[in-house]
């Protein structure tokens, strides 16, 4: 593969679009859960806000604010799209699948999964230094749902 093809595999156009125009890039008023995430190695830093339904079974609304590289921003943006309106249990399963995808333990073409559009992150496991960029928002979201105290760190 040429350099450019390599980079287009890592930075798919969808990722570049979300980096430029992140979705749900806002604090959610009346959120029921929130969490701060920080990657001490590179300084990526975000806050995730989640509003669960009254019966606590569904993610009614989700948003994030913060700063980071294109991959971390796009990952957070696409995550909010993927989990908004979904049952909490499905969100937790999605989190597990996404984690497997990024560590090269899930082949999106052959293994059954719930990833949908998130499959475009499949190229990242070849760039170990960048995996944490994509997982920060997910770890932070999962910790928010679990009500963990303190800041979630990648290290």
């Amino acid at each position: 593969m040429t350099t450019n093809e390599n980079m287009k595999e890592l930075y798919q156009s969808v990722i570049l679009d979300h980096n430029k125009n992140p979705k749900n890039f806002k604090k959610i008023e009346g959120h029921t859960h929130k969490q701060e995430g920080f990657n001490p190695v590179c300084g990526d830093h975000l806050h995730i806000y989640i509003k669960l339904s009254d019966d606590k079974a569904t993610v009614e609304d989700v948003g994030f604010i913060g700063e980071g590289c294109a991959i971390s921003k796009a990952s957070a943006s696409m995550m909010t799209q993927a989990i908004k309106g979904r049952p909490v249990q499905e969100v937790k399963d999605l989190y597990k699948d996404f984690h497997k995808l990024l560590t090269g333990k899930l082949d999106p073409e052959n293994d059954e999964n719930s990833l949908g559009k998130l499959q475009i992150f499949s190229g990242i496991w070849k760039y170990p230094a960048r995996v944490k960029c994509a997982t920060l928002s997910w770890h932070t979201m999962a910790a928010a749902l679990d009500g963990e105290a303190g800041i979630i760190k990648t290290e």
Partner: protein
Amino acid sequence: MSLDVEKIRKDFPILHRPVRNKELVYLDNAATTLKPNIVGQIVSDHYLLGASNIHRGVHYYSEKATDEYEGVRDQIKVFIGAKKRNEIIFTTGTTHSVNLLAHILENTKICKGDEILISEMEHHSNIIPWQMLCQRNGAVLKVIPINDDGEIEIEQYKKLLSNKTKLVSVVHVSNSLGSINPIKQMCSLAHEAGALMMVDAAQAVAHIEIDVQNLDVDFLAFSGHKIYGPTGIGVLYGKEALLEELPPFFGGGDMIEKVTFEGSTYAGLPHKFEAGTPPIASVLGLGGALSYVGDLGLKAIEGHEHEVLAYGTQKLLEIEGLRIIGTSKNKTSIISFVLGDVHPHDIGTLVDQDGVAIRVGHHCTQPVMNRFKVPATARASVSIYNRKQDFDVLANSLRKTLEFFR
């Protein structure tokens, strides 16, 4: 005397291995320098042909290892202009040196309510050990501010100094800004206030001449791996009278004189501070690295690196939206920058595809990032084997990066 860069490049085998099918352009020297053949040879020879412990054997190889190990101490003494060989303590690196110093100064020279001054541009390794000391014994850490160019605010420094100040610990060359600090002036001001002066020379040692007697600093630390030597070896220099007076910190073999269960006495300098078997091969490798640098001459190195840095600065500034962080008049070896709204991590990954190795992130200086209101920077740092054309490659790669994220 100028450097024969092409000849130097032949001594660094890694430069001749393609990376991602491209020629390696190594501009991450502030993180660690590449190693010349001689260093690899010496380390390998010690393990394969001379492995023996020092200071305790009476056999041939032990005596040989001891002579060579102590020989490097003499070499370092000359390299940094120390008065005596006893003033050179081997550590595992600058971080170890600063931590060791913080522990031996605790409640001997720095007590509750005493003040320690550091600058806003310190590496975390010259912040955290002092913060931890303050937490342990109630000393107070104060910070000398820097200006928008990344220079120490000398007038503010003068105001912060008082009879409460017991130690000033400042970096000689900033690893994230490249600023060269006026150590001699700062040291004399510290001494006037009755404080000791410690210098973190990790980023300075490979790039500018250091003469501890001329600077009159009380302590100085550096790491071997930033001057073409192995990792895991460093130095703490201290004036003999101070080191004599201060207590040991690590206890164990080699640092003792007489041991009984009722009580023990300690060895003299420098062994008092060197408990346990040291990384002998790394010390010998550092000796090889210092000889290599000594043969080239630091004046010639400074001249060459200055020229490459000036060219690189000009080339990078031609790029639309590129802003250099750290514009001190007195700078060496480092260009930190941000590029439009492209995050430094994305820059690092993109230029890597062109074989260019730079560093991206906060460079272990989070307060500097806060000072300049950036989350991170990209940093290109030069060394003896870098050529002007390395910056042509970087500049092209950065233009492609901008295009990619447009």
